[in-house]
């Protein structure tokens, strides 16, 4: 009797039925195979799940798909010790009018009862979202700025290359004129002025490269149709022809080897393709020995067109080979070279879906190669 009285004294009064609704919390208790709502349903629940207020046996996971996932985790809590609790991440549901409702669920075991509470997020959801939003917006903005800078870098790099290659040709031609005695004495002064100006421009280009040697990102894509695709043999011959004066000065022969009956169209864009070839031939010219030959070979490999530029120089030191196509990889101190040429080649070739590489020639010297896919009939038709 005494115990009963004591129990009666300890028994707390039942909570008011309207308390959950006032707190905007839906309190559900798990029974045998279904839940029942404790207390009055909050208004938002009546909007999102009108049946909840009336039905006896409730299945919240059918009303809120997210809960099907959460309740799998919650089962461990309900089967555990009293006082255990698990809170879900916030999730968002849409009502019939398309309004968003962000909710959060809590599973707990209390005095042997298995409870599921659904409410608005406990954390300041809007603050979290605002902060994330701000951070991501800034991230996107940062990305856009980097892209702008990259575009300028690439543009600058292209301009510099476009300037430096013909300059090398002009310099080579003027030097040949001067050295071969083909200029009349009164013209020698003019040739000297021309050479001085060329050297001045080359110095300027070196300074520009040194100033702007920053990050360079992949180039914008180029969509090439079969009709517009450049002929690699033709490009190679053009490049070889324009580099011959410089080669002659160095006493180096340039030879193009390809099956003249072959088809050498590739998925690329002519101007940049020529720039890639210029860079590779210029690189070979810089590193080969006088009295040797640079072989520009075209061949078909695995359905792609492969170009190799082979010289008879000393080749690339083994330790430098892995980073040859990285930016600013100069392979040692070489005045005037920013180490962007091969990097540019890699970016460009990969941009077209090709590959580029280096291998030492077994008989000595270097072999730089790249391969490009042929233009497919459906170019531009990927859906």
């Amino acid at each position: 009797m005494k115990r009963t009285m004591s129990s009666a004294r300890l028994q707390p009064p039942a909570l008011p039925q309207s308390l959950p609704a006032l707190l905007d919390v839906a309190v559900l208790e798990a029974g045998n195979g279904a839940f029942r709502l404790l207390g009055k349903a909050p208004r938002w629940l009546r909007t999102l799940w009108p049946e909840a207020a009336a039905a006896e046996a409730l299945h919240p996971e059918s009303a809120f798909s997210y809960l099907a996932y959460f309740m799998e985790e919650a089962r461990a809590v309900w089967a555990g010790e009293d006082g255990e609790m698990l809170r879900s991440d916030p999730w968002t549901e849409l009502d019939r009018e398309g309004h968003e409702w962000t909710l959060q669920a809590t599973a707990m075991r209390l005095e042997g009862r298995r409870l599921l509470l659904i409410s608005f997020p406990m954390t300041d959801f809007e603050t979290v979202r605002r902060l994330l939003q701000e951070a991501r917006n800034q991230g996107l903005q940062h990305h856009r700025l980097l892209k702008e800078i990259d575009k300028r870098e690439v543009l600058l790099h292209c301009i510099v290359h476009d300037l430096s290659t013909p300059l090398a040709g002009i310099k080579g031609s003027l030097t040949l004129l001067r050295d071969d005695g083909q200029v009349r004495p009164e013209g020698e002064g003019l040739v000297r002025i021309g050479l001085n100006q060329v050297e001045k421009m080359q110095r300027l280009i070196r300074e520009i490269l040194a100033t702007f040697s920053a990050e360079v990102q992949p180039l914008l894509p180029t969509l090439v149709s079969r009709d517009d695709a450049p002929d690699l043999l033709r490009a190679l011959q053009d490049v070889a022809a324009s580099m011959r004066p410089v080669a002659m000065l160095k006493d180096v022969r340039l030879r193009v080897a390809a099956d003249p009956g072959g088809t050498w169209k590739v998925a690329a864009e002519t101007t940049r393709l020529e720039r890639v070839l210029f860079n590779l031939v210029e690189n070979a010219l810089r590193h080969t020995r006088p009295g040797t030959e640079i072989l520009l070979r075209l061949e078909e490999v695995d359905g792609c067109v492969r170009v190799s530029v082979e010289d008879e120089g000393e080749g690339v030191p083994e330790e430098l080979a892995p980073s040859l196509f990285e930016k600013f990889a100069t392979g040692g101190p070489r005045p005037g070279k920013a180490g962007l040429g091969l990097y540019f080649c890699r970016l460009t070739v990969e941009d077209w879906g090709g590959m580029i590489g280096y291998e030492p020639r077994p008989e000595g010297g270097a072999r730089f190669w790249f391969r490009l896919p042929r233009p497919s009939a459906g170019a531009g038709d990927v859906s």
Partner: protein
Amino acid sequence: MMKKICMLGASAVGKTSLVKRFVEGIFSERYLTTVGVKIDKKSVRVGERSLDLVLWDLNGEDRFQKLSMSYVRGAAGYLLVVDGTRRETLDTAMVLHHKVRAVLGETPFVMVFNKADLEEEWVFSDEDLRMQAARGWTVLKTSAKTGTGVDEVFMQLSARLLELE
């Protein structure tokens, strides 16, 4: 028949916009980041059969938020969304694809290159897309803004899910 579809990808690739375009037929320029999960539903008909899609639009993965892989449990398929103007979002998609496969095993999915309307900023070549398709994957270009390809993505995935039934 009800099927759970998860939207996966880096943040701001357009997962929510794709769902909104598909379910409601609308697009908003206003970017509102997703925190946690957003759930939407749409019924589709594929031939004579109908399917109730429950679309789980999951928060994007980036340095600020990681995606809880437990969310993908029970998914019948997923969309791997890439932003066609940001190359790094392809890397994120590939990482997520491997993580999801570890949880779900072989599950139908479609790789989506979104934001096709931003031609000026597009960074992927057709060859890039073909390389992904060469793995036997379904790869599609979409624009949640114009609606291009959006229905096709969901319909192709739905058809695949029904084939497996």
